[in-house]
């Protein structure tokens, strides 16, 4: 039995994987798909920065969900490039915030 209180990272990861799969499929164009993978990486980079002083295990599960969705959608294009672009996006998003180039708000 799935309980939201305990299993919320897995549930959100599942939803995010569906969303990322849908987004990559809808983009249609292969290049746009790769660009979107990078952009989603940027979002997770901001989240990685946001949770820098807390446990990131839940965030890693959600990120893996997103990556899985993209990998399934773009599997026959170039799965290695998907992983690389996603990680580069996360790293760049984190770096931009860590260095203080951008000061963005949460809410």
């Amino acid at each position, binding site marked *: 039995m799935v309980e939201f209180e305990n299993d919320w990272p897995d549930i959100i990861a599942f939803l995010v994987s569906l969303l990322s799969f849908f*987004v990559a499929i*809808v*983009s*249609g*164009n292969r290049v*746009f798909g790769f*660009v*979107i993978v990078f*952009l*989603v990486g*940027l*979002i997770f980079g*901001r989240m990685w920065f946001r949770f820098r002083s807390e446990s990131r295990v839940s965030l890693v599960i959600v990120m893996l969900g997103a990556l899985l969705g993209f990998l399934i959608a773009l599997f026959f294009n170039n799965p290695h490039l998907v992983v690389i672009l996603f990680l580069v996006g996360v790293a760049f*998003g984190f770096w931009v*915030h860590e260095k*203080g*180039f*951008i*000061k*963005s*708000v*949460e*809410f």
Partner: protein
Amino acid sequence: MFSLKKRMTWRNFLDKVKRYFWFSKSEIRAFIVSALVFAFVWSFNNGRIELEDLLVSLVLVVVVMFVHHAGQRLWGLKRGFRVEQRLWWYGLVASLILAFISYGRIKFLAASSTMIYMLYGHRLGAFRYGPNLKEFAAVCLAGPVANILFGTFFKQLANMGVFPVFIADPVFKLSLVFAAWNLLPIPPLDGSRILYSSRLFFAFLFGAISSYVLMIVFLNVYSYVFAFLFGVISWFVSYVFFEKGIS
């Protein structure tokens, strides 16, 4: 003829503008990043982009964003607050993702958040002053209102034949789109601050501005009066169905 008190207030306001109006370094950086992204999104059509469109869009976006931010800053200073605009990273990236998914059909142009800080030294003697939801909402509202007035002003000049249509039309369109997106009730956009302040006022505003935009898009009618009426209807419907009976 101004009274002495009013002249002092005007001087005080000008002094505040000189001291606090301009953007900080981080705000300028955020402004530039947002302008570049929005210019890309605005000029991205049918999955293509052309350099000429991009440059024209960049100029338009810079002007419209500046009007939005300046409106908020001036109103904030008038009410005794220093206003700061910050970047909303998720909104910025979401605007790019939406543009790519929709091949440029969805132009989401909202990626800034507003914050107000009290100018203590300038409000001594005022009664019960300080930041509150109402003042915060008023400052946030000043941005979209400035955009709508600015766009309408140029549109009217073009209608009177004293300003070229090929400049006025894009300015008008972009101003409206920018104002409409920023009024969405998604934190930290301007609309969310207005919603927190007053749900009924937000209903009025949402009805008025959405009807104004829809009348232009579908009927080619420019009418503040009808927009106001639709706003009142929206307010009334919201009151009857959502607010009535809530204590």
